[in-house]
């Protein structure tokens, strides 16, 4: 198990345990923290799962050198990489439109201004990230 995965698993377990402790022992009486234990349990489980998945993948690869070579080739294959990059680019374009639609919907539903502003900030950050990466890659390539 490498250090990165060990950290992921440990953080995941700690978050899960804290979430469970807050939920079962402390209770969820404080209004502002009503969703905190569930968020901790959810994120903890996710981080633990990601770390454990990597550990199991590494173990499976070590035990099967023939397939491990094939998996490595599949991962490094230039066509697979090109497909993944294109899919990511299309997904970004779709997300931007979807994001704008969600903001519009929240505004029309007269949702809390704070929520709408957070969404708008996230949307702007997403849109602004494109020219930033474009400029960075333009200098590198």
């Amino acid at each position, binding site marked *: 198990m490498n250090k990165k995965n060990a950290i992921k698993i440990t953080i995941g377990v700690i978050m899960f345990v804290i979430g469970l402790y807050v939920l079962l022992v402390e209770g969820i009486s404080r209004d502002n923290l009503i969703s905190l234990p569930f968020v901790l349990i959810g994120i903890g489980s996710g981080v633990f799962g990601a770390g454990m998945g990597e550990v199991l993948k590494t173990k499976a690869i070590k035990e099967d050198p023939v397939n491990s070579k094939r998996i490595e*080739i*599949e991962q*490094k*294959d*230039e*066509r*697979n990489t*090109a497909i993944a990059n294109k899919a990511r680019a299309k997904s970004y374009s779709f997300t931007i439109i979807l994001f704008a639609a969600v903001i519009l919907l929240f505004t029309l539903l007269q949702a809390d201004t704070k929520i709408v502003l957070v969404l708008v900030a996230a949307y702007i950050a997403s849109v602004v990230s494109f020219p930033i990466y474009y400029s960075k890659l333009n200098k590198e390539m």
Partner: protein
Amino acid sequence: MKNNLEQIRKTRNISQIELADTLEVSRQTISSLENGRYNPSILLAFKIAKYFDLTIEDVFIYEEDQYE
């Protein structure tokens, strides 16, 4: 971009899997190249040409009007 990859490969009696393993790419990449659905990077084009001991022009056919 058209290519003679399938023809050259079959002449040499090499399977798609063998070629893919030697070039360290997936079999689907070889299949897509042969069908003309995927254009290789310049690096892979050189690797393919070098593997068959040919020039890139022997394997890949540049068409003037392909960007029009």
